[in-house]
């Protein structure tokens, strides 16, 4: 194993992450861990069952952001963000990125745009992996029907 293993301080999924360019501060808005899906209701009032699982409710989480904060990143380090369905460990997407930090004491914070999240019922995890194989942490998201609807 090469180098110091980075430490994950925070991993969040939110509707939006803004950054104040003057101070560098991140503003994380609409953090969520549950997504509700419902059947789309077109304007003519009919219910289109074929579009089930495509429409979300409760928040605009179609293309959310991941906010992450790391410490103990020394030099150039490779990371991956994976979105995994925990029932069968199927991977929906994988984002590879690298971080170059000259001082490992510096906190490394960023926001990464995510692709649309699947809205099929189940429990998922956004996982941060170091060097392709070493897990640093994960963030769970459940997709479920709106309350009152049977699974």
């Amino acid at each position, binding site marked *: *194993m090469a180098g110091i293993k980075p430490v994950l301080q925070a991993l969040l999924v939110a509707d939006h992450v803004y950054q104040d360019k003057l101070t*560098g501060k991140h503003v994380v808005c609409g953090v969520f861990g549950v997504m509700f899906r419902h059947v789309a209701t077109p304007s003519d009032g009919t219910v289109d069952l074929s579009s089930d699982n495509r429409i979300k409710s409760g928040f605009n989480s179609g293309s959310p952001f991941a906010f992450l904060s790391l410490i103990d*990143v020394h030099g150039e380090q*490779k990371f*991956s963000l*994976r979105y*995994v369905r925990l*029932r*069968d*460990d*199927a*991977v*929906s*997407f*994988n*984002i*590879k*990125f*690298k*971080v*170059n*930090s*000259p*001082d490992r004491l*510096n906190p*490394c914070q*960023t926001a*990464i745009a995510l*692709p649309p999240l699947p809205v099929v019922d189940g429990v998922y995890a956004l*996982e941060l*992996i170091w060097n*392709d*194989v*070493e*897990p640093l942490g994960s963030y769970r998201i459940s997709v479920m029907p709106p309350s009152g609807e049977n699974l």
Partner: protein
Amino acid sequence: MITEPVFEKIEQTTYSDHSRYECRAVLIKEDDGYSVYASRLPGVHSQGGSRKEAIANISEAFVAAIESYTSMSRDIPWRDADVDASGEEVWILVDV
């Protein structure tokens, strides 16, 4: 003066056909190398003279097991992760 860390996105890949899985494996250091097993798929074991070789071998064994179950149209018998406390957990992205 503080030098800011630099983030750089390398690539982004999405999968809609369930062709990618995450193989969760546990590496155990032995006298002459590493033994390794898939923590969520029973019966998938391997070994290697080095850590890298053991990871490559368990990836192959994992893919072979998944392909075997799917070719026989059998459900894959996922289980809750069985992690040996003395081992090192690795999460490997594999193509099936």
